């Protein structure tokens, strides 16, 4: 049964790779979630005869929630960092103002009526 499970897993993976080019992002996410979800369900909710040792099962069961929370923290940290390092272009703004006055002067000289 273990061998058959591994075989199915690898076939699924190569199918995924070949479909990725044609699949939408939503499709890729659904496929990925289905793959991970079924692997998790198979391992965490297995019948008593095929179960992993107790510590593994205890860690596995809340794993989806842990991953979600970890991703949430990562997102907050990343956005926070990027917000803090968002450049303020003082020189660019000043340069633009100079360009604008140079432009107005030159264009007026060339006959533009604003």
């Amino acid at each position, binding site marked *: 049964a273990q061998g058959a499970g591994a075989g199915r897993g690898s076939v699924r993976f190569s199918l995924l790779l070949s479909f990725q*080019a044609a699949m*939408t*992002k*939503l499709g890729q996410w659904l496929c990925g979630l289905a793959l991970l979800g079924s692997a998790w369900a198979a391992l965490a909710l297995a019948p008593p005869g095929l179960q992993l040792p107790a510590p593994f099962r205890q860690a596995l069961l809340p794993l989806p929630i842990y991953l979600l929370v970890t991703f949430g923290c990562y*997102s907050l940290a*990343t*956005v926070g960092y*990027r*917000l803090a390092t*968002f*450049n*303020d*272009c*003082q020189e*660019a*703004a000043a*340069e*633009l103002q100079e*360009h*604008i006055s140079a*432009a*107005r002067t*030159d*264009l007026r000289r*060339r*006959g*533009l*009526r*604003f």
Partner: protein
Amino acid sequence: MAAGSADKFSVLLPTYNERENLPLVVWLLARTFQESGNNFEIIIIDDGSPDGTQEIAEQLEKIYGSDKILLRPRARKLGLGTAYIHGMKHATGNFIVIMDADLSHHVSLYFIKQKEGNFDIVSGTRYKGNGGVYGWDLKRKLISRGANFLTQVLLRPGASDLTGSFRLYRKEVLQKLMDKCVSKGYVFQMEMIVRARQLGFTIGEVPISFVDRVYGESKLGGNEIVSFLKGLLTLFATT
């Protein structure tokens, strides 16, 4: 054959009520191209602006010459995508520059040299290198970074800034992308980059400074956020 002398840059400028900004944008572009010795043309696509943008455009055509300033107006406001299609029909350059006419993208234009990296597309980014913004409060920056993060996670686009609209395309690349893209408004800009990566085109990035609108109102309200999310989810589900 010297690549530099053979290239011509066609700048597409869709305008709506840009009477104040248009002459400044044209002056900046003309000066930058003249300084770098590149052949160029600026195609102004005005959608029947009521503030006299077309009249200013006509004056600019007299000043710079009708080989450099091409006026291709339309009767009424018809949208960005069709403006580009319309403009491209008249473009004689082999590179197309797409940008807003509102002076928000501080044009340092060394990105034109960047195309020597032989990229199919060169895109301005506010989020990398010394790119950035001016005149944005914390709330606006947060929304921008948050939206960009969401975009990166969902679309994995291979470019750091999708909603900027300052880009350089090879003409045939732009042609091909416009045939494939179906979105409207600025979501269309996002779709172009996503599709470009899918089609295997190379995308180079250049940091740009996004200076808040010199004249006129800049819009980032609840409506814009909602329509951005709708557009993002649509791209997520269809590309």
